[in-house]
């Protein structure tokens, strides 16, 4: 069952097409970010920049001037919220997942868990808004962390459960037989075994939180709490005539998740497989 020449050509053709389709828009974004402003308003477009212009990156990465301050504080807020929510969500999800996986907590409850995040955010946003408002908690990173944690939790629990399910139960039983308690067993036996799953879950959670826009749009209003997606939306709608600036913000905002995704590509597969393939 060898491949014929025609088949090979077809195969490589499709592969190239796919590569172009997936990377094309990203490459273009990157090119825009380093093209001179005038290159970007030529008709028809110049695909290769006439000169390399890294000025947007310098200005975005320095605290001088409005753009840099806006971008950097949004970056800080995004890292804080996504990171904080990921950590807390995992801390809560691991015991919960253990309960679902090993203590026969009802699956119906797990699905109730899941159903909550599947509901559109507009279902929750107004009461949450009023509540946080009455506690004076709007426009705080903590508030977003709370909301994101809740948003990530079911998903993280589900992934962790699916992954704990496939761990050999005998190893835990062995620990119990040796006299260890549940907490000790989870810490010393389950967690080390589930480390790849935890990494996958953490990464997927982080990406989801990093991506969130709706709550951030409504719950934050200034530099102290605004996250990157909201900042980018502001950037792109405001008085920015240089598309290169928008493009460079986009590139910078994509870098962290893209690096994570590529670095943890194997984990995504295992995470997703355990999660969605196994159910």
């Amino acid at each position, binding site marked *: *069952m060898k491949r014929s020449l025609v088949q090979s050509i077809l195969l490589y053709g499709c*592969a190239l097409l*796919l590569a172009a389709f*997936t*990377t094309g*828009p*990203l490459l*273009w974004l990157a090119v825009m970010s380093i093209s001179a402003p005038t290159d*970007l308003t030529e*008709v*028809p*477009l110049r695909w290769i920049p006439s000169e390399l212009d890294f000025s947007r990156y310098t200005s975005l990465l320095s605290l001088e001037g409005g753009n840099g301050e806006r971008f950097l504080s949004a970056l800080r807020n995004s890292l804080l919220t996504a990171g904080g929510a990921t950590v807390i969500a995992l801390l809560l999800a691991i*015991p919960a997942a*253990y*309960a679902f996986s090993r*203590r*026969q*907590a009802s699956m119906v409850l797990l*699905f109730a*868990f899941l159903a909550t995040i599947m*509901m*559109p*955010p*507009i*279902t*929750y946003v*107004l*009461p949450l808004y*009023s*509540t946080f408002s009455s506690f004076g908690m709007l426009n705080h990173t903590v508030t977003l962390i*709370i909301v994101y944690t*809740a*948003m990530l*939790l079911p998903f993280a*629990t589900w992934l962790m459960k699916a992954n704990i399910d496939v761990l050999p139960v005998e190893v835990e039983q062995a620990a119990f037989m040796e006299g260890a308690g*549940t907490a000790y067993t989870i810490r010393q036996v389950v967690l080390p075994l589930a480390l790849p799953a935890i990494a996958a879950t953490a990464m997927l959670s982080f990406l989801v939180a990093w*991506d969130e*826009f*709706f709550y951030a749009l*409504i719950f934050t209003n200034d530099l102290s709490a605004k996250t990157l*997606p909201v900042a*980018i*939306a502001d950037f*792109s709608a405001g008085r920015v005539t240089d*598309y290169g600036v928008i493009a460079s913000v*986009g590139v910078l*905002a*994509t870098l962290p*998740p*893209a690096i994570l*995704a*590529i670095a943890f*590509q194997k984990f995504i*597969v295992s995470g*997703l*497989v355990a999660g*969605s*393939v*196994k*159910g």
Partner: protein
Amino acid sequence: MLGRRQKREKWILLAPALALLALVTLIPLANTLWLSFTDTRISALPEPVHFIGLENYVYALTDPDFQDALFRTLYFTIVSVGLEGILGVAVAVLLNQEFRGRTLLRALIILPWAVPTIVNAVAWRLIYHPDYGALNSLLFQLGLISDYRSWIGDPATAMNMVILADVWKNFPLVAYVALAALQTVPGDLNKAAAIEGAGPWKRFRSITLPWIAGPLMVVMVLRTIEAFRVFDIIYVMTGGGPADSTKTASFYVYQEYFNYLRSGSGASYAVLVAGISAVLIVFYYSATKRQTAGGAA
């Protein structure tokens, strides 16, 4: 397999998660439900709240714009998830072949998925720009169009262009799941079919596709639920325009809340949208159930 102590433990382990979810989802959900039967408005002044029964619902259900928004949302959901499914499976099949550069390509296709939705929207808005967009320029230089076109300014194409951007970002997820499922197809099955005389297409249709149908179903339903609440990409790319042709249900509710300040009425829209989501979720539940019950088969 549970000891008495372990049964108690179950609740201790679950308690923190349950508490948080109750606070952040259950209580607000109930609250939204309550709001939807009132005439509450967003206001800085203390305003009287009246219970008005089903009035909001009557209004919502007779609101042709809302119906339009719902249908638009359905269109968006069905078309984008459908395309993601087809493209995802095709890509998975491609990536399951052996060829040089496969590992690299597998790594590359995860990239769009890592791009934040907002960046995705902004990037595509630039690409679709009527004057300086890459799409017009590319098609023009390739000789595929003779005049620059308005892609997201034209109601005939706007929604489809948003869908294209959404598909670009989300097909990798489907592709990854499909690929993972493909890798579990026992080699013997395809070999057996080959020996029985089945060609590649027949093998794909009769063996491969049924085998991956379960996981595929799960991820597609998951995507459906996600697509149904689409908001951010629309907010940034088109703001609902042109002529409302991309205004989706979530956007509609957002507007009712924060533009028109009618929280009671908005809540009733939200409940209706949530209701449809709930139907999808039940669908999802049965899909996963079938999936786990039937094993990979």
